[in-house]
């Protein structure tokens, strides 16, 4: 880590030494550790994805064999879901900002927070150790009875993801207790920054849904080792019960990823529109609404698994409510720009990409929830493109928006705006270029997880791979100019965006102890009214 050259003492440098970093209980340092972890996971998962895309340039027999291909998409999913997307925004920006946004010096349980990072690291190592043992070929969804009968290292991965889940629960619990007990007197509930609300809602999902994931993976792992036959029809078990358990977590997990992303967007939109968010109350209600309704939509992953018409109808209808809550937010974000003072900069460019991906990802979600259309699209590239738009695209663009928006907060330095804009455009074009052809492939009927495909689809695969290349280029560029900025970027000042957010009311980067006394903030985090004559 670099040290600022003109250092007002900050959390980066005090106390000094690698050991103090490894043993740190400071939420800001833990955030940086999570950043390192999630960025490495993103690179690893991205590398797997690139190999997959290159493989798919030819209809059959490309650079890897069928079995290696199966393992690559499995580990791509596992790494991206559990090691990047779930911890990305809560682990990095949640940790860094929630205390600063509520006027606290620490989370409620600093040592629990430290443990959550090291548990995350342990879980990640165990999960990756499976690669040394030959990898897993089940797909990240671990569908039984394939997952309980395949001879690959299923049990190891189950243990690894189980441990990652423990880290999630610890993080979530810590945030909830922190928001309840550590708010400064001048931050009542309805003045919480919207980002804090989304982290709070996410934490509820983390605490309530993760145990069910842990349970289902523990059972799959145990079944794989001891042949319990819990989900194997040969022993009387029911494979569809596993799917219910799995999606009971894994559907809300989508909201674990996307809710914090929505929080980032709310903050960035308000700051760069220099305007109070349109309908703070609406956004809060929608946030909590998504978190709660999200628990009751898991069945829409199983419309063609042999579910009854009644269940199909209920799950489809409930899914529509999630769409309405999302639409409320979408409207609110756009209207926030109305009569504002709009400043265009890299973070807001990422937000535009987010809005695009979110709208089309969301509307394709509505399309799938109409249930009859899902019969054609289920398990095709259409679904792949849909969830990459809504879950990956939204999370990734919000992560990048957050990184660019709060980079000065984290480091006290500025990056090259020119390069940042170039990268933002490359990421946007790259992402859409990768997945737009996949929507069409899904329409044409290309099932997901196919190693070989009919030749008439090749041009779409080539287009998709080109998009992936551009996306990788954009992300690689980001890494370079942010790395340069970290060492040599000019000082940013405490509040380079003239934001009214609470987090900008401390020095950037913040000192190890941000508040010597509970802060008294008279104006709330979106008070741009004084700009209006």
């Amino acid at each position, binding site marked *: 880590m670099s040290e600022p050259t003109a250092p007002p003492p900050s959390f980066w440098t005090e106390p000094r030494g690698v050991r103090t970093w490894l043993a740190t209980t400071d939420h800001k340092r833990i955030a940086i550790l999570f950043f390192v972890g999630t960025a490495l996971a993103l690179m690893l998962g991205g590398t797997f994805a690139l190999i997959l895309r290159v493989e798919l340039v030819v209809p059959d027999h490309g650079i890897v064999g069928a079995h290696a291909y199966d393992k690559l998409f499995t580990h791509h999913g596992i790494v991206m879901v559990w090691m990047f997307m779930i911890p990305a925004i809560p682990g990095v920006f949640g940790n860094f900002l929630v205390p600063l946004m509520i006027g606290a010096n620490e989370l409620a349980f600093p040592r629990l927070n430290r443990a959550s990072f090291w548990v995350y690291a342990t879980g990640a190592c165990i999960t990756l150790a499976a690669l040394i043992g030959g990898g897993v070929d089940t797909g990240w969804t671990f569908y039984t009875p394939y997952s309980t009968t395949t001879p690959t290292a299923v049990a190891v991965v189950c243990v690894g993801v189980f441990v990652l889940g423990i880290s999630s629960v610890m993080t979530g*619990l810590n945030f909830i207790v922190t928001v309840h007990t550590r708010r400064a007197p001048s931050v009542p509930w309805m003045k919480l920054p919207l980002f804090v609300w989304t982290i709070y809602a996410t934490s509820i999902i983390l605490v309530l849904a993760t145990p069910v994931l842990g349970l289902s993976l523990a059972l799959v792992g145990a079944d794989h080792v001891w042949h319990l036959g819990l989900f194997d029809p040969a022993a009387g078990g*029911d494979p569809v019960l596993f799917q219910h358990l799995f999606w009971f977590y894994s559907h809300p997990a989508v909201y674990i990823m996307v809710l914090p992303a929505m929080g980032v967007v709310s903050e960035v939109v308000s700051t760069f529109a220099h305007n109070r968010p349109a309908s703070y109350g609406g956004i809060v209600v929608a946030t909590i609404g998504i978190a709660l309704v999200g628990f009751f939509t898991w069945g829409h992953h199983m419309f063609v698994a042999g579910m009854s018409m009644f269940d199909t109808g209920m799950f489809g209808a409930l899914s529509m409510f999630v769409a309405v809550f999302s639409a409320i937010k979408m409207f609110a974000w756009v209207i926030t720009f109305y009569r504002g003072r709009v400043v265009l900069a890299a973070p807001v460019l990422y937000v535009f990409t987010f809005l695009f991906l979110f709208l089309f990802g969301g509307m394709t979600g509505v399309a799938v929830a109409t249930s009859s259309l899902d019969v054609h699209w289920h398990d095709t590239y259409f679904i792949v493109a849909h969830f990459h738009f809504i879950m990956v695209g939204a999370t990734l663009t919000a992560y990048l928006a957050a990184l660019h928006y709060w980079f000065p907060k984290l480091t006290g330095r500025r990056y090259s705006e020119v390069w940042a804009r170039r990268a933002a455009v490359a990421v946007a074009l790259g992402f859409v270029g990768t997945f737009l052809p996949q929507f069409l492939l899904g329409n044409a009927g290309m099932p997901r997880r196919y190693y070989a495909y009919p030749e008439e689809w090749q041009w779409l695969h080539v287009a998709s791979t080109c998009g992936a290349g551009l996306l990788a280029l954009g992300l690689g560029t980001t890494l370079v100019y942010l790395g340069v900025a970290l060492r040599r970027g000019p000082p940013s000042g405490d509040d380079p965006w003239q934001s009214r957010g609470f987090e900008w009311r401390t020095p950037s980067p913040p000192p190890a102890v941000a508040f010597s006394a509970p802060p008294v903030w008279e104006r709330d985090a979106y008070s741009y009214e004084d700009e209006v004559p």
Partner: protein
Amino acid sequence: MISGRAHALRITVWLVVASEGLLFAGLFALYAGYRAEYPRGFAEGVGLAVGWLGGTNTLVLLTSSFAMAAAIQAGPRAARRWLVGVLGLGGVFLGLKGAEWAIHIGDGLVPGAHYAGPHTPGTALFVTLYYAMTGLHALHLVAGLAMVAWARRREDPAVTECVGIYWHFVDLVWVVLWPLFYLLS
């Protein structure tokens, strides 16, 4: 700042209870699904249970919950004594549970490939669930014992109260497990 540490602890313990509750809920859902599918196999499985051991254990845990409640009501000094009672009863429960497992394993009721129990469809699943659910419950009890020991050392009424909430939760889970595995034949 709102009343600080005690408040934080209380929220934490309720969150832990909710989280663990869903963990068990997943298993209860599995049990319900399979019981609906194999009513005979499950009834036969319940018939294999060592009824008096299950009943005794229920009494033991209920008594321990009573001791826990008394510990919370009592002053710090007396609480220490009540907590010893909780620890003892928890130990007795685990001992009996271990004995019960040993009896079952001796009868060939082991989950997985070496299962040698009745072949009514569903009974093997029942046995697997029996070990999974009572095993998970026993793990929670062990964690609970560790917490009780910690509360006893801390002598902090807030800590005792929170550990008590967790202990009652573990007790409550058993009160649900008991009919599922011993009574509903």
